[in-house]
């Protein structure tokens, strides 16, 4: 089938960008979307033009590298699917598609369809963990965990950190991403010791990075390739509110002796 692509081309973070039109005359329906871009890039290279830069790695929908907008929707039209797993059989002969990078102040464009998402790492660094050093763990079965809690924690922990939630949000909020990690750990007994500190620090870091507030638009849940639920944001807000009231600075009085 014939596909027309309009792709955002931008040489560097500071360069001016623009949409450029490309026509692909024979796309196989069995190709993945990225394989179609591979074919385009091979052609561009042969013609001596600069190939389109896009992020990708595992191509199995789990590493979270890939992601851009297809006709205004992160990862394209198929629900619950990263763009590397999106196959051309979901498109039609003659379709015209507009590809743009994820847009958010906290995701500066690096080149073409590739953006810098290191802000998400810094949110995790602010508290998205259980502070347990290597070697200090009790036996794995010493702490029984209710299956339902474990399953819900797993649902939240499935987030791949692709940033689609941010790109879809009118406020460019990272609430779904941040709340998925807060929920994952808040639902487990291992996460209780640092629960309040985690909520305060991660939410503060999210705002520090320039992500917006959540206004319950719900776009994030609709585009999330891993089906992360909006209720995680409610849990994050509850934890944050509770922590904001109860939180006290650590006491250092008297020193360690």
């Amino acid at each position, binding site marked *: 089938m014939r596909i027309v692509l309009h792709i955002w081309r931008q040489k560097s973070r500071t360069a001016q960008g623009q949409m450029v039109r490309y026509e692909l005359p024979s796309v196989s329906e069995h190709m993945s979307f990225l394989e179609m871009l591979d074919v385009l890039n*091979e052609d561009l290279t042969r013609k001596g033009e600069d190939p389109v830069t896009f992020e990708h790695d595992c191509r199995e929908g789990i590493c979270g590298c890939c992601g851009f907008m297809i006709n205004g929707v992160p990862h394209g039209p198929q629900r619950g699917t990263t763009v590397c797993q999106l196959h051309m059989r979901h498109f039609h002969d003659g379709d015209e598609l507009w590809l743009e990078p994820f847009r958010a102040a906290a995701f500066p464009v690096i080149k073409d369809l590739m953006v810098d998402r290191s802000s998400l790492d810094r949110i995790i*660094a602010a508290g998205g963990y259980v502070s347990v050093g290597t070697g200090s763990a009790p036996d794995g079965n010493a702490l029984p965990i209710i299956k339902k809690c474990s399953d819900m924690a797993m649902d939240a922990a499935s987030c791949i950190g692709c940033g689609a939630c941010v790109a879809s949000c009118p406020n460019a909020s990272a609430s779904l991403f941040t709340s998925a990690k807060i929920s*994952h750990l808040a639902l487990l007994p291992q996460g209780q010791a640092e629960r309040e500190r985690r909520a305060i620090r991660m939410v503060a870091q999210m705002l520090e990075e320039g992500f917006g507030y959540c206004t319950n638009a719900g776009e994030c849940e609709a585009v999330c390739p891993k089906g992360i639920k909006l209720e995680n944001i409610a849990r994050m807000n509850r934890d944050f509110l509770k922590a904001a009231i109860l939180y006290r600075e650590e006491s250092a009085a008297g020193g360690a002796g």
Partner: protein
Amino acid sequence: MSLNLDARIPSGPIEQKWDKAKFEMKLVNPSNKRKYSVIVVGTGLAGGAAAASLGELGYRVKAFCFQDSPRRAHSIAAQGGINAAKNYQNDGDSVFRLFYDTVKGGDFRAREANVYRLAQVSVDIVDQCVAQGVPFAREYGGVLANRSFGGAQVSRTFYARGQTGQQLLLGCYQALERQIDAGTVEMFYRHDMLDVIVIDGAARGIVTRDMVTGEIDVHVADAVVLATGGYGNTFYLSTNAKGSNATAIWRAYKKGAGFANPCYTQIHPTCIPVSGDYQSKLTLMSESLRNDGRIWVPKQAGDNRKPGDIPESDRDYYLERMYPAFGNLCPRDIASRAAKRVCDEGRGVGPGGKGVYLDFAESIGRLGRNKIAERYGNLFEIYERITGEDPYTVPMRIYPAVHYTMGGLWVDYHLQSTIPGLFVLGEANFSDHGANRLGASALMQGLADGYFVIPYTLGHYLAQVKPGGLDDSHAECIAAKAGAEQRIQTLLNVKGKKTVDDIHKELGKVMWEYCGMGRNAQGLEKALSLIPGIREEFWKNVNVPGSGEELNQSLERAGRLADFLELGELICRDALVREESCGGHFREEHQTEEGEAMRDDEKFCHAAVWEYQGQDKTPARNVEPLAFENVHLAQRSYK
């Protein structure tokens, strides 16, 4: 022979070796640790766990990854699970049994002492991961659940749905981010390692390229840890991530690190078959599916009926027939070769006859659709997305694909390569899986190396060297940097006609054809005559657009391919010299009457360790003899 291959295996009974080694190792006192700096390259399970654990201990760590975040490392794609000898199922498991299964599964080509240690620390890994909040599957009573995996008759595999690698890596990534926040680890994203710096015989740093700006930099340290994964992408099509590459270990090899058993490559039996020339990678369907899926092909060659129309009496459940004791759960190398054999007989299914069925109809009938969805839901979704077929109603079609490389840089018991101060962890080393890795053992090894081995053995090394005393003005640093810059310019200046992928596909075809599931002397000699030609074509006719001073994905791929083009030749050379069949290395000349692999323990009960001799010179083959004192050498039987 000039490589020092003293494996430094502690004396004494195998059960006591690791405890003894730990006690005898030198320590660095807490206030001195911060005087030492360590470079860790790669942030998958091995590298991420190492960087986090070394940071916790107080060393100054610089960690590097080529992805945009340490969480992207390809460990994330591991699906099925992680083995641990917990015996929670009361089904007869023990440290010794996990050790025994791993040595046997590896077809008696691994080092016993390393494997025993791996089995010992496996129990600590699961505890550590649970404490980090890894949401392993649980039973209603709240205890951890287990599943079984290939090559074992006990249930010792811990899992988090079909995303175990993801959850373990996130646990390890979070531990790493905690150290980044604490300031003990400095993280470098989007950095490609281009070379290792060796000064006075010891590894003292690396050369990197900032993939966004193109800047080439030198980083020095008191020791270097490589945890950069395997080299399966030499074959172009594999289950590895597109970015997975061998540059770090290949550069180290060219600086004097021995490369062990490069021909040991694992072909995974359950992958989604190739659909066209544009195919960019192959997707694995977890081995765990073999717990409930039954593998079959039609009894008659050329039977074109739809799978549902083929009655039971016309189906050949060939693994159950040939290996009744292990059935569909026989080890990967055996299952892959059996699939190739039935396809070669003309009984393969799907386009081109390169596929076999993996059928869930019986287990859906027995357990219900919901139970199957709970166990494998995400895998079924992946399959449906890629093929457009619903595996709940139509059997999956699968075919073997390159998945894992058991070979890698040679390391001793301390995980140190033949270059002092250069440590190699995880898939990048050769140590634990012999000639075939069992399912759910890669995650175990990566985390064992990173969490529980390197913190001890690296400390022992550092305690014997003086910290610091080096900066990037040293002649070796300047030379290594200039060499890396020169190489990039050379690649850019070729300005030929073929793309990087054109040439990589050519290499991949040769590797798969002559050095894939079945190998023979004639084919390997053919490959050895073809590869230098492809390499020459590459350096004369590759087209790398753009410049070195910008983000340039073609340039990144070209640099990696240049190394695969050399490594591919070494893989074939090693396969040619190893005139026996063992595990994933199957020489057609050496098989039993039933077509099983036939080892030659007299001539080849050793690790082959290749030593670089200079550009375009034949490398030297050294050997480390393997002694089996605890597991009796025997022909593997899964019947």
